[in-house]
């Protein structure tokens, strides 16, 4: 619990910093030693950065969660992300659970502003897509439902899921 609080504070500090300094990369890196001392462990582990530290997945999909996840996707995500591998505004979701750890996916959904500033993989995608993913104010619970929907989509599209979760 203490750790979580500390991490949250660090996240808050980072967010505050990045918010205050805009998107100027040079400024960020030159003054980084003062405010963001080192790459957080979670980023190094490919889990991204944010509230989600550990996600335990059951092998079997929860159909109710898949349904709820789809409803949120339809309303808040589908304008920019297709369920295929086609990129429109943002990347297509096909195979996302085979590429990214569940913690990374959920942090990207719930903590997008910090992810886009601090996580190298998220930043690389921003450079590719050139549109900042908006904060859609998705709760942690809803993000978990969306993750379940992604896993279902990956099984349907690729026959596989959770391949990045090892």
């Amino acid at each position, binding site marked *: 619990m203490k750790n979580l609080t500390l991490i949250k504070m660090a996240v808050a500090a980072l967010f505050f910093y990045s918010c205050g300094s805009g998107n100027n990369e040079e400024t960020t890196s030159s003054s980084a030693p003062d405010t963001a001392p080192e790459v957080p462990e979670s980023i190094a582990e490919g889990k991204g950065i944010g509230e989600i530290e550990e996600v335990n997945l059951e092998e079997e999909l929860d159909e109710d969660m898949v349904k709820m996840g789809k409803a949120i996707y*339809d*309303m*808040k995500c589908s*304008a920019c992300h297709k*369920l295929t591998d086609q990129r429109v*505004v943002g990347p297509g979701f096909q195979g996302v659970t085979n590429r990214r750890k569940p913690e990374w996916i959920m942090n990207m959904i719930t903590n997008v502003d910090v992810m886009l500033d601090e996580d190298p993989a998220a930043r690389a995608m921003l450079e590719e897509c050139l549109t900042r993913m*908006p904060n859609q104010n998705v709760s942690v619970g809803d993000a978990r439902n969306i993750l379940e929907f992604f896993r279902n989509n990956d099984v349907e599209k690729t026959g596989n899921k959770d391949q990045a979760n090892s």
Partner: protein
Amino acid sequence: MILNKNALLRLMPVLLIGMVACNNKDSSQLIHGDAAQQAYVPPGEYDEFYAFLSGGYSGQITVYGLPSGRLFKEIPVFSQYPENGYGYSEETKNMFNTSYGFVPWDDSHHIELSQQNGEFDGRWLFVNGNNTPRIARVDLTTFETVEILEIPDVAGLHCSPFITENSEYLVSGTRFSVPIPQEDVPIDTYKENFKGLINYVSLDQEHGHMDLAFQIEMPGFNYDLARNGKAVSHGWSFLTTYNSEQAHSLLEVNASQMDKDLMAIVNWKKAEEYLAAGKFTERETSYYHNLMDEGSGIVNSEERTTTKILDPKECPDMVYFIPVPKSPHGCDIDPTGEYIVGNGKLSADMSVYSFSQIMQAIEEENFDGEFDGIPIINYEAGLHGIVQKPGLGPLHTEFDGRGNAYTTFFISSEVVKWDVESKEILDRQSTFYSPGHLVIPGGETRKPNGKYLVAMNKITKDRFLPTGPEMMHSAQLFDISGEKMKLILDFPTKAEPHYAQAIEAEKLMSNSKKFYPIEDNTHPYATMGEGRSRVEREGDEVHVYMTAMRSHLAPDNIEGIKVGDKVFFHLTNLEQDWDVPHGFAMQGATNAELLVMPGQTRTLLWEPKKPGVFAFYCTDFCSALHQEMSGYARVSAEGSNVPLKWGLNEELRENQEAANSFYEQAKTRASK
């Protein structure tokens, strides 16, 4: 502003000369060394107070920060606002319905923030429309106008909407007396046929909804300003009147004949008893109540047809009068609720009344006759004392919570600080020029925050760079924390602020809404996800269910519209992020644009007049690809058989069923 500037200028040429001489004082001599620092709010930091200023003839409200004087927002209230489509969109145009029809302008005067226990609670803001009598409510979580109630059978609702200390009622009075009910009579039958009304609008404590509880039929005077009692005087209302002469022409002379006019004093708890006892008459009338539904943002408009009238002749001990010096304007009550200041515009002195003395005079029936059956309390019996020669043309008074009152003087162009108990004058500072109202944060409540005072001036002249014949009005910020008032800032204000109220920023900030949760959107034409975007035809009505997300509109290609159709663009903003509205403009639309907040649905009507292909686009720079956020609508001739089609990204779809199952199709296509 009731006070006719020209009239005063003509009536008091000698005084005017004095005033001009006074105004020519070099204000830079009044500035102290650290003034700039006091008004300076560094970049990225917040002001300590929100100040809500009425807009006068703009009909709107503006929101400023104090002490910086920075303008944060203009809230559209009584006037259509093409900038965001307020009053033009299908959802909001009902806000302007009145018994006179659609009235898209008014004159907003007095701001009243909701209170609990005599303190601002930061829930709602109320403001009056003068010309077509009505009262609006602004929700302080969204800073949006959500309700307008018309007040029947009154004219010029200047004396409005003064709130009681637990937000039980908004009290108002007619500025112009008129025949009730309206009828075709000679104007010179004023004395027999013209009446005034004092109105009590009750507030639903949970939602703030307004309801006309009752009206009191009064003599045909001009009811000017009011305040409600607080603490010891809670349960009573005080209203200044002018024109007790009952003149109906050249009022600037004929309504200023008598040495004293009358202040009306209403025991509204007594009125409630009479109402409960059924001592009212119900009269047929017509007035409108327009209320925005929270979930859909749609304004529902309803005509109401009856009103309950209480007659003071039938209801003893409910209404009294007390004389006030010549042509009074402001009527202000100190934080203890004991002292009531009546400012006679044309009087050299100011009368301060004592609530406990007034109560005693009523108890002892110390009356000097009556008017239309309403007892007139003996002036001296109710008088706490007179502030001798404080200045010229006293208008309004606010309080600092430390026993001091601050009064604006229009003619001598100054703010005067005086001690309420001793009536001694403590300080005077010039303003530039001719102040109307003044505001101290919480300055009319039980708990003023006596740090700053803003004087809202009526005349600007040389204060700012010239901008042609019309100048913005000027406001002046004073630091009043010390013994002497210190001028620290000038700032221009929009249109003509009359009254304003200011509140600690922390009381509003934490409740401020950042977006509308899309899950709570109950608009019948909302599009809950881009996959459900579609176009439907119902006769000659075409409904476009459109979504906006950085950086595209869906659908963005529409065909099959015909000349003569009514095309309704129902735009749902799917964003759920703070400060990301999307705009919508349609070439050839004869109304305005839409500005749609995240999670909201708004509708623009377009009636294309000729065949062709017309562009629409997002008007709010929303992202790096904002310029790409656009689309085309194809219009065919009347009777053409071009089929209805719509789409995005070359995926044209032709019927509603297909649109509804868009998601399933996408899934199928993807799995192939």
